[in-house]
């Protein structure tokens, strides 16, 4: 896409009028979008642009992280995110180690801290952590030496998802500033939501959140978003519609009466999509519940970029791994 590569040339050779482009990430971890400045976000997206091209080569590999060990420490089952990270790590020639921990709230076993410290004894360079508790990555960042990448912590953040979403939007729209982005679904329990809200508002998008009042987090308007239970209002003239997964357990928790009713009131149908702009794109972090948050025709329709999101995930994760890896040797020597 010419627009994006032009953008990266500009950020390297000329100072932008209002802010200096970032040339590195300040933190040695990626715990969330919260800690990233707009310039750092743009740096990651620009770097991902270059990483995308590697997927188009015959040999989809560069030697950048050769000899480095990355541990994928997943306390929650996840095929999509884990394989995406794994492909990203392998494309950068890193050695990957997948550790899947089946947790049960009843069985106490080893603490998270002890598990991580035991792994650290084998000197990984980075730990990619997915965990059911919000703040798990912050805890590890305090006790571990390795760089920590958040692959999803409880209901808190899923930064690489928001980054790949932003990358996808930028591919199609050329920018994020000024776009109307509607996010519909279980807002309360979604870490994808929190990361996306932070990123989109930071880059100047106009964000509209929509869902049943029972699933709207208290005080979320303070993040600079519109909140409405009326889906028609949310998607009116939207440039981007993002759907969030509805989980069956929410029904059992009394958040809404039935999946059928949810679909009737909030489900993204073709009719609802028509209220958005004609060139609107439909996004979903996956996995989808067809017929609950999104109608099949919409998921498979011409506006859907859901599969592109998955492809972009690898490039974005490669960018994050690359940008966080700088300085590892100097720190080890110190």
């Amino acid at each position, binding site marked *: 896409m010419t627009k994006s590569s032009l953008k990266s040339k500009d950020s390297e050779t000329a100072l932008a009028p209002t802010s200096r482009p970032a040339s590195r990430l300040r933190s040695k971890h990626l715990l969330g979008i919260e800690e990233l400045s707009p310039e750092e976000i743009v740096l990651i997206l620009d770097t991902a642009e270059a990483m995308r091209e590697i997927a188009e080569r015959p040999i989809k590999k560069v030697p950048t992280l050769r000899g480095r060990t990355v541990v994928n420490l997943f306390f929650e089952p996840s095929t999509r995110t884990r394989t995406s990270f794994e492909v990203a790590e392998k494309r950068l020639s890193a050695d990957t180690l997948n550790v899947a921990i089946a947790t049960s709230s009843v069985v106490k076993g080893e603490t*998270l*801290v002890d598990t991580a410290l035991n792994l650290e004894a084998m000197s990984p360079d980075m730990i990619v952590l997915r965990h059911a508790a*919000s703040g798990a990555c912050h*805890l590890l960042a305090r006790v571990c030496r390795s760089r920590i990448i958040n692959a999803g912590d*409880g*209901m808190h953040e899923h930064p690489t998802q928001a980054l790949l979403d932003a990358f996808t939007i930028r591919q199609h729209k050329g920018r994020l500033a000024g776009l109307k982005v509607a996010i519909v679904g279980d807002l309360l329990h979604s870490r994808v939501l929190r990361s996306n809200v932070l990123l989109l508002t930071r880059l100047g998008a106009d964000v509209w959140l929509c869902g049943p009042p029972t699933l709207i987090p208290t*005080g979320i308007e303070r993040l600079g978003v519109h909140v409405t239970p009326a889906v028609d209002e949310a998607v009116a003239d939207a440039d981007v519609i993002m759907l969030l997964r509805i989980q069956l357990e929410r029904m059992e928790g009394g958040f809404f009466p039935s999946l059928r009713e949810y679909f009737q009131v909030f489900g993204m149908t073709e009719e609802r999509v028509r209220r958005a702009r004609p060139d609107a794109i439909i996004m979903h972090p996956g996995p989808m519940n067809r017929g609950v948050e999104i109608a099949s025709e919409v998921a498979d329709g011409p506006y859907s970029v859901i599969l592109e999101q998955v492809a972009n995930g690898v490039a974005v994760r490669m960018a994050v791994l690359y940008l966080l890896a700088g300085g590892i040797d100097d720190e080890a020597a110190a």
Partner: protein
Amino acid sequence: MKRLLKGGRVLDPASGVDGDYDVLIEADRVLRVERGLPADDDVRVIEVPRGFVIVPGLIDMHVHLREPGQEHKETIATGTASAVAGGFTAVACMPNTSPVNDNAGVTQFMLNKAAESGLARVYPIGAVTRGSKGEQLADLAELHAAGCVGVSDDGHPVRTALIMRRALEYTSMLKMPVIDHCEDPSLKGDGVAHEGFHAAALGLRGIPGAAEEIMVARDVTLAGMTGGHVHIAHMSAKGSLRAVRHGKEQGFAVTCEVAPHHFTLTDEALHRPVQYDTNVKMNPPLRDATDVAALLEGLADGSIDAIATDHAPHHADEKLVEFDRAPFGIVGLETCVPLALDRLVHTERISLRRFVELLSVNPARILRRPGGALAPGSVADITVIAPDARVTIHARALRSKSKNTPFDGWELRGAPAATIVGGRTVFTNPAVTGSAVFA
């Protein structure tokens, strides 16, 4: 052997004394409180440094001493050492030990341990229901006879309105309060932090203030209906204070306490200085600025009766986990007086006299224990306060076995200088007392 505390300011709200007086102590009693008492040969003189204030011994009516059963967190010995280091001459300890203090045997065990340590007085609070399970009343009269000063199922609310009613009716004959940890379990759910913007942003399940308010309203109504005395433990929400005020206006026997962390911190502490610090996880949680403002008002205008720390020690390993999994609670015995002096008295929100009411006079009255007064003939439980001493809180230096406090590094003005129980000096803080000898 008589001892004479000479040169300090004496503040005894119960008798209206406030000024420069000398205090003569013999054995375990206060003999005289007058100006210019002579230093006879059989009297040891203690020169009280200029500016220090002598008040009736402070009483913390809500602590967890963890013994029997959880001695890795705290013992009665270490807990009472922490208490006197905090300026407290007496503490009331909660029954959620292992086993629960729902019978005279456990009560007696606690009293024996306290006597062995010989530091702060310990007033056990017994359980309302057997095992605090909320099903059947415990033997409340036996508990009272064994030495309990109140009953509580702390850790849990008294489970049903019916049981609360029966408990209030029954204890009215025994003249002791039912102390309730007010929260509606269904609204609390598996919440871990105050339901508000900060919990929402951090992805933490919320506990709304209404969960507490609803139970407080229930208990106030039942107190009115039965004539029994309900004491609201660790009150945190503005709505709860409204309900308490209403009950008091109606003449119901309702009292309440507030912990220092609830009037000095808000839920913003979840975010700053550090995110997900498990040392800001307690139940009830830190609430928002409007709740704190309401509590400060209540402390000043008399709607709130007491300050009590809810001292809840936990081992460092237990707190070094994900926020969701960490146990609720922080220690408080050694941070209470500096926080109250710095944030309430020095900011002129309350007077020093009111400080003594909140930390001595009222707790003694609510628990119907001797104390809270310095008049001749009273037991010589005395706290000497240095209101202008500058101290820095160091978690590592706390005498409690556990160091789970969010106040590490805080610089505060005001500290206890010496603690005297039954005429014996059980604690002095040399950093504050300087060369003065209080023994």
